[in-house]
């Protein structure tokens, strides 16, 4: 089965004010099949937002894709011409940025913002455009779609804005959706509704989704596979159930231990000290030769200081980058 998306050896760096290059992603490899949901888990500084932006070459002006390939439906996105890229963005790949509040134009009604996405990729007459827009909004807003269509972003709640972003992203029937922290700053109930909406959209339109979050609990029951990012590198990637139940990478295991007890479905006592990952998140502006997790790893070995581990297959579609596993 040819994967829908195949990322190989992606390296991205940012240049700071002095012009020094600070690596954000290093050697990221993964692939995604059609209709599959991949959950990308990473904490601040792991490079998860950089990944979302880099796939569509939407990095800010100081970001640079240094090397790698991003094969989407057989074509390398990193080589695509500006014209082709514009057609793919929004047309074949839908992107939902963080912060629904600031991803919408402040002085345009949201219905028009959805129409604009349609108009950018398909040449439709006004009547059809308006019909398609209403249909789209009805998909994400089961009630009240008419009123929402003429509202401005500041008149909507966080959850409603998020739904508008989803409508924009699926407008032209893409085969891949990339959602960067779609439920941050939302209430638990609204969070569940939005995640449910992703499920529905996947079922009805058969699209693949890359869901990026810092809260792994959100991906339970939703993601088919999990990708754990640490310091711009893929620590572990595999089927969700397996990665949750038996994490192989020391970082993944430590991260799961940090979560409140109920999530781990294991006995815990309240009001006691939680497990923490000792040390601080890595400073990526400082060059390092070995594994980035080594300073905080409980299972570290000598080789970890001097060499970076490569990916090792440990199960069906399950890979880990750690020297614990010979490969």
């Amino acid at each position, binding site marked *: 089965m040819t994967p829908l998306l195949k990322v190989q050896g992606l390296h991205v760096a940012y240049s700071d004010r002095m012009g020094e290059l600070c690596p954000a992603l290093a050697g990221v490899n993964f692939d995604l099949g059609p209709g599959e949901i991949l959950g990308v888990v990473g904490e601040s500084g792991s490079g998860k937002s950089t990944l979302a932006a880099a796939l569509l070459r939407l990095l800010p002006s100081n970001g640079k894709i240094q090397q790698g390939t991003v094969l989407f439906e057989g074509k390398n996105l990193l080589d695509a011409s500006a014209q082709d890229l*514009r057609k793919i963005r*929004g047309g074949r790949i*839908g992107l939902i*940025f963080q912060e629904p509040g600031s*991803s919408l*134009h402040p*002085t345009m009604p949201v219905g028009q913002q959805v129409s604009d996405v349609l108009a950018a990729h398909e040449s439709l007459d006004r009547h059809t455009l308006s019909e398609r827009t209403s249909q789209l909004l009805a998909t994400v807003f089961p009630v009240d779609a008419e009123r929402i269509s003429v509202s401005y972003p500041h008149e909507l709640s966080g959850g409603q804005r998020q739904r508008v972003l989803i409508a924009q992203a699926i407008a032209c029937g893409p085969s891949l959706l990339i959602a960067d922290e779609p439920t941050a700053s939302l209430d638990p109930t609204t969070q569940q509704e939005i995640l449910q909406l992703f499920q529905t959209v996947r079922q009805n339109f058969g699209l693949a989704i890359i869901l990026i979050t810092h809260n792994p609990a959100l991906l339970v029951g939703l993601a088919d596979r999990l990708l754990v990012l640490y310091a711009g590198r893929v620590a572990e990637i595999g089927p969700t159930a397996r990665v949750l139940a038996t994490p192989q990478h020391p970082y993944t295991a430590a991260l799961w231990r940090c979560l409140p007890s109920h999530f781990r479905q294991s006995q815990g006592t309240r009001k006691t000290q939680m497990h923490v990952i000792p040390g601080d998140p890595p400073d990526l502006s400082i060059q390092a030769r070995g594994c980035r997790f080594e300073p905080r790893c409980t299972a570290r070995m000598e080789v970890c200081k001097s060499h970076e581990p490569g990916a090792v297959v440990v199960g069906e579609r399950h890979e880990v980058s750690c020297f614990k596993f010979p490969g």
Partner: protein
Amino acid sequence: MRYFLRRTLHAVFLLFGVSLLTFLFSALTPGNYFDEMRLNPQISRETVAALRAQYQLDRPLPVRYAHWLMAVAHGELGFSFAYNSPVGPLLWVRARNTLFLTITAMLLAWLLALPLGVWSASRFGRAPDRVLSWATATLLVIPDLVLALGLLILAVRTGWFPTGGLASVGFENLSPLHKLRDLASHLALPVAALVLATLPMLVRHVRASVAEVLEASFLRAAVGHGIPHPKLLYGYALRAAANPLISLFGFSVGTLLSGSLLVEVVMSWPGLGPLLLEAILARDLYVVIGGVLLSMIFLVSGNLFADVLLYWADPRIRIAASAK
């Protein structure tokens, strides 16, 4: 709505205040229109006194102000000593000429500033943008007077443009097409002077507002949706950057009567500017007050206009205003 009623009331009070101050200052400056006459030995002291009495210049200040106010309430703006005619019609003819000039210049300036500013912002920091910034900075530094004089010299040296006035001799006898051409050739230099004077600031404002918006998240999101480039710049970026520009536009409307004085005087354009200048020098009291009042009306209306435009253009302001 209450908001605008309040603002309008405020504006009326403002106009009262300005008229009073102008009256006061003009009356307090030493001398009056007839002082020149006093120096002329052929006119007797009694004649001067009689003239003064006729124009009520010997009455106390508050009385004169009250009379003037009553006259304004009836739509009369007073009497010009120098032209020996009512102020109203006099001002109107000149104001019309000024507006003709300034409206043309303003529209042209904005039509040029918007694309230039947007283009510059989209190439922010790169060579073309730097060249434009350098050019606008240079133009800003050159005083308006120098610009106007420079253009005048161009006219004199090349003979391509007339050097002053509104129309050539024998204007009435021309065919409509020729009339238009004649008008255009007389208009060209003053408009050019005004445009060169106001364009740099406008371009810089447009560039700054748009450049700021180009960094915004919603614009990156729009790029992510594949919105085509021209629509991004004009439909999204400029639209979001519109607020400060709309305010600026409103203020431009406010200065339609007052901003062109220098150019009019230098280029002999028969507008409000030269009239006011003469009147101030000759102590033609009512012309001065009338002219200042008219300019103030425009200024205040311009501000109000800016507010109305902003209210219409930005839905967030509607909410804030209705909540008050």
